[in-house]
């Protein structure tokens, strides 16, 4: 038998180091038994994931039921307007948002975001069908939705690469908001007048840039960063 030279407890013959203080076992009179049985199994057991199929089924059933009921009601109530498309569209959108992530545990975040954005686009498309607004949908709503989706996707890709400091995160989010609003004005102008004359979005962008400058400086200068970290415990 060997004892830990550091804490004085008797150790198992197969122990290569003390489980309490991690001091290696070095006993010339009794080398570590490398092949003997360990006191505990070494094979790890897997914990089965919680099955979510039932929940997915329940949500699906509820959404289908709502969509079908409203669709049928639409045939009798105010049949001149396709108002049920609003409800059905919402049901489809909610289904795409919640059910695939429940069923596919390993759904990549990016793919999920793309699906979510497409669901929003589909919903707005159904609304435009009712309002007879194919024009504004293709030239205004869809570009804005896709731009928003692309920016969120970009942010997700950047943040996926591990932990970012709260300074970087804030800077990037403010920048993304500025970019998005700039794009919104671009599409609105082109839809209304056919030419781009940046106005209010320039003010927003200026504000965003002004907010980002101090953050970038603090992020870049180590002494400032340390000071902020100390003051705010970040």
């Amino acid at each position, binding site marked *: 038998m060997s004892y*830990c030279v550091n*804490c*004085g*407890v*008797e*150790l*198992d013959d197969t*122990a290569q*180091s*003390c*489980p*309490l*203080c*991690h001091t290696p076992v070095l006993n010339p009179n009794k080398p570590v038994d490398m092949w003997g*049985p360990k*006191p*505990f*199994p*070494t*094979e*790890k*057991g897997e*914990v*089965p*994931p*919680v*099955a979510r199929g039932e929940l997915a089924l329940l949500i699906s059933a509820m959404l289908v039921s709502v969509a079908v009921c409203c669709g049928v009601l639409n045939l009798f109530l105010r049949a001149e307007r396709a108002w049920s498309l609003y409800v059905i569209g919402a049901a489809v959108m909610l289904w795409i948002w919640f059910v695939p992530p429940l069923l596919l545990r390993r759904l990549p975040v990016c793919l999920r975001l793309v699906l979510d954005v497409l669901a929003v686009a589909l919903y707005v498309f159904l609304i435009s069908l009712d309002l007879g607004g194919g024009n504004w949908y293709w030239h205004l709503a869809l570009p804005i939705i896709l731009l928003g989706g692309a920016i969120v996707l970009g942010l997700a890709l950047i943040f996926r690469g591990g932990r970012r400091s709260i300074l970087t995160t804030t800077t990037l989010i403010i920048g993304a908001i500025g970019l998005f609003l700039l794009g919104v004005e671009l599409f609105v102008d082109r839809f209304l007048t056919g030419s781009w004359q940046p106005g209010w979005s320039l003010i927003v962008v200026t504000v965003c840039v002004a907010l980002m400058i101090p953050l970038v400086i603090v992020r870049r200068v180590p002494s400032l960063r340390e000071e902020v970290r100390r003051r705010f415990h970040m």
Partner: protein
Amino acid sequence: MPKHKKKKPDWYPLDNAGVLYASIQKEKYSAIYRFSAVMTEEVDPAALQRAVDQVMPRFPGFRVRIKQGLFWYYLEPNDAPGPFVRPDIANPCQPVRFKEDNGWLVRFYYYRRRISLEVFHALSDGSGALTFFRTLLAVYLRETGVDIPEGGGVLNIHEPPAREEMEDAYSRYAGKKVLRGGWQKTAYPNTSEAEPFYTLNVTMGFMPVDKLKEVAKRYGASITEYLAAVLMQAIMENQAAQRPHRPRPVALAIPINLRGWFPSKTLRNFILTVRPCIDPALGEYTFQEIVDRVHHFMRLSVNRQEMRAVFTGNVRFTANRFLQLIPVVLKNPVMSLSYRLVAARPYSATYTNPGQFKVPPEMAPHIQRMEVILGQATRPSPHCASISYGNVMEITFAGTGVSSETERRFFTHLVKEGIPVRVESNRTK
């Protein structure tokens, strides 16, 4: 026409401790504990399976599955095949899945000479599980050809289960007066960096009971009080090593088996925790002072009247009309939060000592030692549990944190007091 016999209800509600353990259940956390017996011979898995098959029907409180009703969880008899004995694994006390493994809430493992039983805490406390385990070991030994008589804590598996074994003893003994504990201060959490899911670091220490008793006596305390004091000191040293601006109090949750004060044969939960506490912000405490404080606190707070008033409050809480009507899916998050605030936040660790494991003399030569593991806490900090058998005291630290400082300080303290300690662990580095 013959009169219809009134059919016994085949489901039953959880007791008030069980309600709590079921509602704090998460994907990555279940309240699980494990008892193990290390036999003198290699375990025969086939004989163990035969023993499990014979013993389960005698213990209807363990042969159940848990179901989610609209307002509460409930238990119903489980007629699914199993439970099946399995080769043991390196990371014990895994979270249970209510809908998988045929709904079983007890698990059986074997590894070389060790037989292990894992129980979901909503079913039973340590005392009930040890009665079940003792009977299982007796039937297992009979299956391997050893003649073990009934009695001496071994239940007769050919008798029908007694009604009293299934009673909710909390409700039976609940009184009229309710004692509400005040708001407890947040204790030092004793956490360290969390291991990846699912890892449970288990470290066991073995020592002679007579030696331990002698040292405890020198401090004027029982073994439980002495070990609780050593643990509190270890946690206080952990905190002091971090040099906090304002040290937090160090407090333990120590479950008390209520059967000693309120006679009951129940095999379900019947425990209450007490909270010895030391506030290092008030100044230094010598070890003798810590022991004295724990000793006197335990003697003062463990009494029939106060304990009854406390669990009466718990029974009233689950019987509350208003709470009854909240759907269980909404109740779970609320119960889970209140567990964190009331049952986890004011404690640095849990220390449980089910005491001496006694068996009929015919069984004794076949069991070498007993072990106990209290499964993961809701945060990465170790729990402590101990059990003695013959002259071997076994103390386990188990947790999902990386640090082994608590157990190092604890066991080296015992070594310095002259108690020889042997250590085994499932840690790989």
